[in-house]
């Protein structure tokens, strides 16, 4: 039988360390886009709680401990992912969910990166137009937005700690853009 070796989206591209900031790859486990059918939002949230212990996230929010999941802990979390859609991460979706929502496997579709360290917020301020002030974008807040020229999902995990998702095929551009912004911030003495 043929043996196919898997390759992660950011393999060979990270880690990148500039100053006190690092960009690393995160394994969020199984990723499933969950899009509730008409009028099934509440039922979905209940089923999600029953099966995975988390509620469906409101727009711009996450449920579950995303930071722990991003650190490799085996637990499920959900990241709001667009109009009436969220991304279930770190769990094989319970088959019961399928009656409430369209489920699509996205495990291989996204490059998942984490930028951490003093200056990370300033780095993102060079790449994304969203308001990253602590009061406006708190821990557990998430946004679908732009990162330089790419569509991205950005989630705040901590003060200077973010989860970034872009299309898998854009992994190289992500690393290039983030590295350049990191260098600029570090040179100013900001990171």
């Amino acid at each position, binding site marked *: *039988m*043929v*043996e*196919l*070796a*898997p*390759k*992660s*989206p950011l393999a060979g591209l990270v880690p990148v360390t*500039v100053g006190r900031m690092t960009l690393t790859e995160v394994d969020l486990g199984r990723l499933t*886009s969950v*899009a*509730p*059918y*008409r009028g099934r939002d509440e039922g979905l949230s209940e089923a999600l709680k029953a099966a995975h212990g988390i509620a469906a996230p409101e727009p711009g929010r996450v449920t579950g401990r995303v930071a722990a999941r991003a650190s490799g802990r085996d637990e499920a979390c959900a990241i709001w992912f667009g109009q*009436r*859609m969220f991304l279930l991460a770190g769990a094989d979706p319970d088959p019961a969910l399928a009656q409430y*929502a*369209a*489920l*699509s*496997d*996205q*495990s*291989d*579709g*996204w490059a998942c990166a984490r930028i951490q360290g003093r200056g990370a917020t*300033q780095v993102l*301020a*060079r790449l*994304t*137009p*969203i*308001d*990253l*002030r602590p009061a*406006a974008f708190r821990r557990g807040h998430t946004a679908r937005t732009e990162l*330089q*020229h*790419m569509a991205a999902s950005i989630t705040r995990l901590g003060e200077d700690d973010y989860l970034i998702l872009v*299309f*898998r*095929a*854009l*992994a*190289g*551009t992500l690393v*290039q*853009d983030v590295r*350049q*912004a990191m*260098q*600029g911030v*570090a*040179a*100013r*003495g900001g990171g």
Partner: protein
Amino acid sequence: MRIGGEGPIGRGRRIGFTFDGRAYQGLAGDTLASALLANGVRVMGRSFKYHRPRGVMTAGSEEPNALVTVGRGGLQEPNLRATQLELHEGLAARSQNRWPSLTFDILALNDLASPFFGAGFYYKTFMWPRAFWERVYEPMIRRAAGLGALSGAPSDLRVEKAWAHCDLLVIGAGPAGLMAALTAARAGADVIIADEDTRPGGRLNAETIEVDGVPGRDWAAEITAELSGMDNVRVMTRTTVTGAYDGGTYGALERLAPEVAARPGAPRECFWRIVARRAVLAAGALERPIAFANNDRPGVMMAGAVRAYVNRWCVSPGRSVAVFGNNSDAHRTVADLLAAGVHVSALIDARHDATCSLDVPFYPGAQVSNAHGRCGLEAVSILTPSGEEKIEAECLAMSGGWNPSVHLTCHMNGRPDWREDIAAFVPRPGAVPGLVAAGVARGDFSTRACLQGGVAAAREALTALGRTAPEIDIPGAEDSRYDITPIWSVPGRGRAWLDFQNDVTVKDVRLAAQENFRSVEHMKRYTTQGMAPDQGKNSNVNALAVLADATGRAIAETGTTTFRPPYVPVSIAAMGVGGRGKGFAPQRLTTSHELSVARGAPMIEAGLWYRPSYFPAPGESHWRQSCDREVLMVRNAVGVTDVSTLGKIDIQGPDAAALLDLVYANTFSTLKPGRVRYGLMLREDGHVMDDGTTARLGENQYLMTTTTAAAGLVMRHLEFVHQCLRPDWDVRMVSVTENWAQFAIAGPKSAELLNGLLDAPVADADWPFMSCGPVSVGGVGARLFRISFSGERGYELAVPARYGEALFRELVARAEPLGGGPYGMEALNVLRIEKGFITHAEIHGRTTAFDIGMGGMVSKAKDCIGKAAAARPGLSGEEREQLVGLKPVGTVKMLVPGAHLFEEGAEAVSDNSQGYITSAAFSPTLGHFLGLGFLRNGRARHGQRVRMVDHLKGVVAICEVQDPVQYDRDGGRMRG
């Protein structure tokens, strides 16, 4: 020269620099302008048109004369204002617009010919002969007139962009701005205070004014320290707010300090987009010159600038200084000069009723009428009530009053209001939503009024933000009255400059009026006043006052020209940060990218994707060799190509079938699970939008495939149809393009290759043409589709993208022993042309289903988007250009895409065009060129001959019209 004094420059560190190759020394804290003045350098530039020697005139970003170039090659930056350029070790600045040197400039001959060079000269003179304009006159004029130049090399300057968000943006950090920021900051609002200077304080850094009993600059430093220590405040120095835009967004250009910009990886500039809920404009004012003969001589400076050089940089611009003004600032200037020990040769006050308490020769009611000394001022002539006098002076400090910096308030089409009492334009309230002006920018001239105005503006903003303003003490400061008697130009002979940067004089503006360019906007364009890098900051009001006088109107009636962003020059590099080279667009790479590149495949762009063009084999030196080999390889053995770039949309829900029936011309609700169908999608206007195959994976789940180019377009279309047209339908869709790596395996040996790889082989009985289903490869769950874009037996195998690279490697390695291998886009294109399969070359947006021969696919049994519009007269029938196949049958054996088709005997002109070729390639399978194209009534013309003419390449070929499917017409090879 440097003088003693208590300016903050003190006994700064010595810094070596060069100007035009000559070495000088300055002090830390100097600008290039202050350092050059300290070294006695008076000529710093040449004027735009007449090449007149020019010295520094101001001490800020409005400087019109002292423009220099730094850097070489890719690091060259022209037109930097010496007044803003921070001195740093090794700075090598060069003067501009002179040849051979700054002190001896041959083109200064233009100055002697000035009587001929007035406004409109070029329009009137270089009219004939007509062809000479582009080839002779324009290059000549451009060479003679100009500013600094770019090197021509691609820029290596590193620039970044950034966003910032705040509750209150304070523009300008003078007394008003600092008080506004302090008030808002103490109320807990997020504050950004931006100032273009290297240190906050505004005019306080240049004056001897006291605030709260201490020197103004010390007070400013104290407030700045408090602000900098607060978490909710960001103090941005060296940052010019350049534009006001919709939604409370402001553009701002930050110049990094030279020592920071010199660090590895550091940008030189940063272009900010600041989003603010409210804004306070405390940008101060710009002092305006007075027009008199030869008022552009080096040494004639703005009085406020002279005070800045004396008080801040401890530099005297001359051994003896004459002061000329029409307001009380002239007296302040004299007092500061005397205190610094500089000899003042005269105080010329244009106000007849002025009195003077200072111990200097005083000339009330007098005006300066001329300046003497070509490369440096030597003396000025003055007109007094008792006659003309000549006074020796190396510097003339002049003040014609102040123009509040209203520019940003005009960026959203606002117009400023004229205030007669201060002879200046002031911002019209509400001109920019959410922005209020404060301090001098609003027309409040005393320091005390500025401090108060800042607090008041902040209070207004805080109320709007729903915050309570704290009690705040207004510091004590001078509260003198601004007393001005306007003078715009002094009568007399000789040229009196208005726009120093563009060499526009009083005479030019009068000429414009005389030639009936009476509107201020027409005058501006006729004379070029205000069109230089300073955008008329120094000349705008004077020029329109002269125009008002010449046309017998009031200033308010004459109005002002339009201020547009940016407030200061901003390089294109700063505005388009990140868009250079590969930064222009992200690179979307397939999982097989690295292996393809390693095999020497040239990559071509398809949207954001990169796809292999062909895979050169040893000994192949031309792409055609590789392409022909790859085509025959697929026809005779097996080929592998990455098709992951095609859009894949997962559509689920009880109404999924209904959605597909609506968006596709043909029917999908009848498709059985496990089967695939080709679908054609129309736009609302009846033309073809896209095509592709859609598989039914389950009762309520379809997987739609789009073309690479239209993946985003189709996704958007589906969302539109669902959200806007049929929100009642229960259907959800999401892109899964990135999740799957998909490879086409095509050729007679494709089943053999596939079955060697799959965990369980597939048999034709279970896997007929257009079937699909799950399979397993090395234990990995995969999807298999039996479809073909080559016309051969073909499969597409999709695996989760993490296995894409490994699968591609495996497929290629196993194909080669079978006489197969990878194939690229060129071969893929030839294979589909042979089969008459369409791409966006054919469905280019102007073709209908009828045109491409698929009219029958538009289902009669149901409605679909585009069906009604496609039935409009003119979109089908004999007069339409219809898809045909073409092959050359004359002596020329080549077909060219883009060429037009004509009747054999007809002249090849557009009126006679019968159609055009959309795709053409050499078919190694058939041994000749093949084309696809559109020909009027083409389907009825199979077997006829037409003439192909490519006017661009000069190729003419006789072709025979035939069926678009030119190979294996019954599809036996494909169906197996």
